C-alpha cells in the first residue's frame, strides 16, 4: 500500500513537473526583434507557465510564416499587403487581426563627419532612387553617395519604398544589408554613406533632420516630433495574428498594450501607442 502511495505521489509530482508549458512563437521584423525579446523576457518572468520564442527574418518572412501556420504571432514594421491578406483569407477565412504596438520614426543616417544636416523628402527620394548621386548636388562635398538599405523581405525596405520613394524602385547601386544594425555599422564606417532604419538603432551615427518639402521646417526624429507627425517618416510597428486572439496569446498582447508593456517600448527607443 505504501509503495502504491509513493508511486502515485511520484507520478503526480512528475506530472506537475512535466506539465507542458504553453509556447507562443513570434517571427518577423528585424526592427522589432529587440523590442519583442524584451517584452517576452519580462512577460515570461511574470508568467512562468508560458514560453515565448522570438525570431527575426524580416516582416515578409514573418507574414509568410503566419500564413503557413509556422508562427502564432507575426511582428511587422509595415502593414500587410492585400495579396498577403488574400492568402490568409484563402487558408483561414480571415483577414488577420492587426495590433498596433508601437510607433517608430524611421531615421536617415549619415556618417558623423558628413556636413549635411537636413534633407527634404524629395531629396531623400532622389538619392535612394539614384537621381542624385553626388553629395555636392545637395550642398555636401564633391563625393559620390554610397547607398545602404535593407533586403527586400524587410518591412523597413517596403515601407521606405512605398512611402518615401512613392513606390519607385531603389537605385541598383544600393547595397542591401540583412538588418538595420548592419546599415548603421556600414554608414558609421563609410564617410560618404547614407542609410535608413529604425530609431532604436540610431546610435553611433548621426540622424539627420527631415522636412516635408523644400519650404518646410526640418525635424529630428524625436518622440515629440514623431508623435505630432512633424517628423514626416513615421510608422506603426504591428503584431498580426490569424484570428481573434484567445488564451495565452490574448494575455500577452493585452499586456503589451498595458502601461507596463508600453513602458518597455519607450525604454527600447520607440514610441508608445497608448
Amino acid at each position, binding site marked *: 500500500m505504501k509503495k502504491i502511495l509513493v508511486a502515485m505521489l511520484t507520478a503526480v509530482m512528475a506530472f506537475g513537473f512535466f506539465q507542458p508549458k504553453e509556447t507562443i512563437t513570434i517571427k518577423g521584423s528585424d526592427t522589432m526583434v529587440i523590442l519583442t525579446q524584451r517584452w517576452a523576457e519580462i512577460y515570461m518572468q511574470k508568467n512562468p507557465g508560458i514560453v515565448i520564442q522570438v525570431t527575426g527574418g524580416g516582416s515578409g518572412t514573418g507574414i509568410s510564416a503566419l500564413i503557413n501556420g509556422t508562427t502564432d504571432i507575426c511582428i511587422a514594421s509595415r502593414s500587410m499587403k492585400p495579396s498577403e491578406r488574400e492568402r490568409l483569407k484563402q487558408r*483561414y477565412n480571415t483577414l488577420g487581426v492587426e495590433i498596433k504596438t508601437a510607433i517608430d520614426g524611421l531615421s536617415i543616417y549619415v556618417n558623423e563627419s558628413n556636413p549635411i544636416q537636413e534633407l527634404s523628402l524629395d531629396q531623400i527620394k532622389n538619392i535612394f532612387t539614384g537621381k542624385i548621386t553626388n553629395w555636392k548636388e545637395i550642398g555636401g562635398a564633391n563625393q559620390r553617395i554610397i547607398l545602404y538599405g535593407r533586403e527586400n523581405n524587410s518591412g523597413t525596405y517596403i515601407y521606405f519604398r512605398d512611402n518615401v520613394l512613392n513606390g519607385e524602385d531603389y537605385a541598383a547601386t544600393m547595397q542591401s544589408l540583412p538588418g538595420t544594425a548592419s546599415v548603421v555599422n556600414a554608414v558609421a564606417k563609410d564617410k560618404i554613406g547614407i542609410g535608413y532604419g529604425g530609431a532604436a538603432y540610431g546610435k553611433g551615427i548621426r540622424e539627420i533632420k527631415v522636412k516635408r518639402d523644400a519650404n518646410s521646417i526640418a525635424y529630428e526624429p524625436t518622440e515629440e516630433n514623431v508623435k505630432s507627425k512633424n517628423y514626416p517618416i513615421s510608422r506603426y510597428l504591428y503584431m498580426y495574428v490569424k484570428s481573434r486572439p484567445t488564451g495565452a496569446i490574448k494575455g500577452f498582447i493585452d499586456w503589451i498594450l498595458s502601461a507596463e508593456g508600453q513602458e518597455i517600448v519607450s525604454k527600447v527607443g520607440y514610441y508608445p501607442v497608448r
Partner: protein
Amino acid sequence: MLKRAIIFALIILPAINTRAQDTSRDDANEKVAEVKEAINGINETIAEMKTRLDALSKIKLSGYIQAQLTSSSGAGGFAGSMISGPTAVGNFQGGALAKDVSTRFSVRRGRLKVTYGADITEYVLQIDVTQSGVGIKDAYATIKDPWLRTFSLTAGVFDRPFGFEIMYSSGRREMPERTRMYPTLFPGERELGIKIEANPTEMMGFLSLFNLKLGVFNGTGPNANEVDNMKDVIGRFGASLPFVEQNIAIDAGVSIYAGGIKSPTKYIYKKINEIDSTQSNKGAFFGRNYIGFDAQIYADLLPIGGSSLRFEAITGQQPGTKDDNRSPSSLLSTDMYLRNFLGYYFALIQNVGLQHQFVARYDQFYPNKDANSKHIGAPESKMGLGDLAYTTIGIGWVYYYDANVKFVLYYDMITNDKVSPLTTNATYKPYKDDIKDDIFTFRVQYRF
C-alpha cells in the same frame, strides 16, 4: 678604440634596424596586397554567383499531388446507364466509374507548374500527371504595362475568366471537386485565347478594390482545336471589399459568357417538345450565353476560427444534344438541344482551430429550367438525360497536417430528379428512382 666601436655601433645599428623594419613593412604590404587580391577574387565569384542566383530566382516551381480513395454507394456502368455521360456514376467526383466498380484509388491531380517571372512578363507552364497520362493544364505568357502595372495581356491556355470556382485552385479548394454546373458548362476550366486584365494597384486608392478580366476564346475547351470561326467572349467584373477593423471581407463579381455553337441540322429542340425546323437553322450559330453572379463573405465571428460563406449562380442558354448538356469541344453531329439552364450553390467553410475545417455545400443544377425532369421519357416528350436535374449535398472535414499536407474526408449525397414513370426507354428507366451514386472521398494532398 672602444669609444669608436660604440659610435660605429650607434651609427650602424639603427640602419640595420631600419632595414629590418623596411623588410617587415614590405612583407606586410605584400600580404595585404595578397589578401586584397583574394578578397577581390571572392567578390568577383560572389558577383558571378549573384548573377546566376538572380536569374534562377525568377524561376518558381510549384505543384501538388492529390491521391485519393473514392467509394460510391453504387457501381458504375449499371444496366442502361451512360458509361461516361453527364449522368454516369462519379462523373463529377473525379471521373466516371467503370462498369461494376464502386471503389477505386486514383491520383486525381498531379500538377507541376513552372513560372518564370521577369519584371513585367511571366511565362507559365503547368502539366497534370495522373494514371490516365500527362496533360497540359496551363501554357500562357503574360505581359504587364510597365507604367501603371495595372493592365496585363495574357495569351495561351489558361483559366476562363468566369465566376469564382474556376479561378479557385483545386489545390486550395476545400471540397474535392467543383459543383456540377462548372464541369458541365466549362469542361477542363481552361480555354485557348487571349485576355486583358485590369488590377489597379494599391497606389490607385479606391480603384484597387475593383478588377476586370475580359477575353476572347475559341470556345472548344483547353484540349481541342478550333472547329468554327465563332469566337466566344468571356469576362468578369469583380470587387473585393476588405473591412480590416472588423475582420470581414466581401468579394463579389458578375460574369458573362457570349458565344455560339453551330447547328449540324435544321432541327432545334427547346423546352419539352418544341421543335424549330426552319431550313436556315442548318449551319447557323445558336447562342451559348451565360450570366453569373458570385459572392464570398469571410468573417472572424466565432471563437473557433474564421468562417466563409460562398454563393454562386449561373443562368443562361446552353446548346447541347439530347442526352448530353455539357459544352461540346467539337462540332455537333446530331440535332441541337437549346436549353435554358440554372445552376447555383451555397458553401460554408468553418475553420476549427488552426488545423481543421468543417465544410458543407448545397448545389443544384437544372439543365432545363423550362421543363421538369418527369417529362423525360414521357410520351410526346423530346427530352433526354441532358435535361435531368440534380441536387448535391456535400459535407466534409479537412485536416491540415502542416503547410504542405492536408487530408480531406468528404461525402457527396447526390439526388437526381425522377424521369417519367411511364418511360419504356431502357436508358431512362434506372432514373425513375434516385440512382445510387453517393460518393465518399478520402484524399491526401501534398502541395509545395
